[in-house]
């Protein structure tokens, strides 16, 4: 299976070219309700993650809340 390179939270990652955003989230065991996701600096509606196919050089940011003042 062909692999593509993407960046997740600043780190390089190699995934199958058939991967959807939802597959990545599932693979990373990310609790969807507690995060927000950006794809190439655009916020993704979480309802649509299983419709988005990942492409070579995609940049994904997954953020959540941590302690802060």
């Amino acid at each position, binding site marked *: 299976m062909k692999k593509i390179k993407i960046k997740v939270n600043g780190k390089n990652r190699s995934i199958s070219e058939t991967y959807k955003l939802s597959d990545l989230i599932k693979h990373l065991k990310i609790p969807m309700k*507690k995060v927000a996701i950006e794809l190439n600096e655009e*916020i993704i509606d979480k309802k649509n993650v299983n419709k988005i196919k990942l492409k070579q050089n995609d940049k994904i940011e*997954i953020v*959540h809340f*941590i302690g802060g*003042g």
Partner: protein
Amino acid sequence: MKKDNLIIAKKKFKSRLIVGTGKYKTMSECAKAIKLSGAEIVTVAVRRVNISDKNKPLLMDYIDPKKITYLPNTAGCFNSKEALRTLRLAREIGGWKLVKLEVLGDKENLFPDMIETLKSTEVLTKEGFRVMVYCNDDPLMAKRLENVGAAAIMPLAAPIGSGLGIQNKINIQIIRKQTKLPLIIDAGLGQASDATIAMELGCDGVLVNTAIAKAKKPFDMALAFKNAVIAGRQSYNSGRIDKTLMGNPSSPLKGII
């Protein structure tokens, strides 16, 4: 006594103390301190999920956002673009519209960049956010923030984390006089009495993080701040006596033997 709630963006809160969730040793220490403080609003930061350590404890597992109002902040943002990106992401996590805007201008003194802050307040308000704005203790800037739709004015007492207490009482009083918006002292408090002073100046609330989290006994300090805010508010509402230069005897002069 009639109800004396803090009202921000039409939401009522009994507690006038807002606390930060940063700098605690552990999540459970943070959660316990918040409980003791009685705070109903806590500030939180937006950061990357640690994808290599999935067992890292999550803030939401310790502080239930259904019970405590999360106030996402933009800490660490140095321009409008970063701040907008951060708060749009925060909203996406779970529909948060009440936010704390903080755009810093200098890495050393952590003073806010008020030009970027003003720009961001305007954009965010137009996007439907209710923006509580960390700002300088400058009455003119506070007025401008109000004019572009800020939900609360949050001037610093002193630099973030400095523990210096309110440095410019006059400016805070002038801002109090000119605005009906919630006025909350944000940043720079060091001890409980600083919070009392803020409340006695007529502020609607205080936001404290370091002074509690980094106290030798954070739980005791959380309680101290809770009491200090209540005392300050009661004192303010009670109407203090006029100051006089000379003494005024407390016992009647009539009937002295």
